[in-house]
């Protein structure tokens, strides 16, 4: 907002901030086709395709950022790119969800594999105690 000829750009992802600074122009791969955003652009909200976000800084240099998708919010003096860190597609997400379900089922089924050391030790102590009792009973009987 300091200079009317630049626009504040923030590129953030869930795992960290990627870029923050002033720009004269921003290009982004919007879902309906690439867009260029100049200062005082009309408010716009769009999803992004995987691709490249290009930022032209005020000193005439260009910076490139790869985004795996996400969303872009444009306000007259502010552009926010909410970048995905992972490539998203309906079937990829679907497969990941299925895998998460399967993991839960498998872990529930597999009673032996996931026993922790503490559990194993507790089991061992119990078995040792039982053996002791049996030995004592035998002694009494004989």
């Amino acid at each position, binding site marked *: 907002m300091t200079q009317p000829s630049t626009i504040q750009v923030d590129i*953030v992802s869930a795992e*960290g901030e990627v870029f923050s600074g002033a720009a004269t122009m921003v290009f982004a791969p919007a879902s309906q086709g690439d867009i260029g955003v100049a200062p005082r652009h009309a408010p716009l*909200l769009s*999803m992004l395709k995987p691709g490249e976000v290009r930022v032209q800084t005020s000193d005439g240099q260009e910076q490139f950022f790869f985004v795996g998708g996400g969303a872009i919010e444009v306000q007259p003096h502010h552009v926010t790119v909410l970048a995905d860190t992972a490539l998203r597609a309906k079937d990829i997400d679907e497969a990941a969800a299925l895998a998460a379900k399967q993991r839960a089922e498998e872990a529930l089924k597999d009673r032996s594999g996931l026993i922790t050391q503490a559990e194993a030790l507790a089991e061992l102590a119990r078995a040792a105690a039982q053996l002791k009792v049996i030995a004592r009973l035998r002694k009494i009987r004989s």
Partner: protein
Amino acid sequence: MPGTKEIRAKITSVKNTQKITRAMQMVATSKMRRAQERLRAARPYAEKMRAVIGNLTAANPDYRSPYLQRRTSVKSVGIIVVSTDRGLAGALNANVFKQTLLLIREWQGQGVAVKLCLVGAKGMAFFRRLDTAIVASVSHLGDRPHVKDLIGTVKVMLDAYRDGNIDRLFLVNAEFVNTMTQRPIVSQLLPLEPSEAGAPREHWDYIYEPEAAQILDALLIRYVESQVYRAAVENVAAEMAARMVAMKAATDNAGKLVEEMQLIYNKARQAAITKELAEIVGGASAV
């Protein structure tokens, strides 16, 4: 009194253990710092996301996203429990599980079914012994969790919510208060509480590509994912802090043990010398 050799062997063994616990303490300290940094790095995204979602809902009062709608009758709730993969972290996991059990009992007491989604191996080991339904799980995210690894797990719960299989979604994880304090925290993920309903701004609306409803839902999904990611990272920070404190206590205890044994060792050695001297003196006087 045990022989000096045995005591010496024991001292060496305790000292070795102490070396390990001290190393683990230092590793946990540096990992904790890194986790804290990642926690800080995740904040701008969530804040920006919240702002955009706030703008969107303010601009579109007529579209009611299923993720924002409060359902009056609750038949089933989902809980995402974040735990660690490894132990030796004090009571961290136990506290999280206790809090979760309270939550489960509270809902079950009202006749509401509970579905669990577990992040972390310790959670799986604990909750599979209970008869609560576990619908999804992910473990071994490592010290650097990635959003990518959480998407599928969260999607199971989001889909269940959208399809009406659960009516609320909660998140339980260990909150990193500071190095000495970590406590379990329960937060509601869905329905999303609308952010501060500020005064309606001057009327303006976005140009949408594609439709507003589609964008809003896509953003809400990402927002929930980012919250689970934040919880996973915060849990790592809490885990490392708890391990650091636990290992420091172990190191200190080992030090005390060594000190005590050193004293016994000195006494035993002195006793042996005295005995030997007495024998020599006794032998000399006999001659």
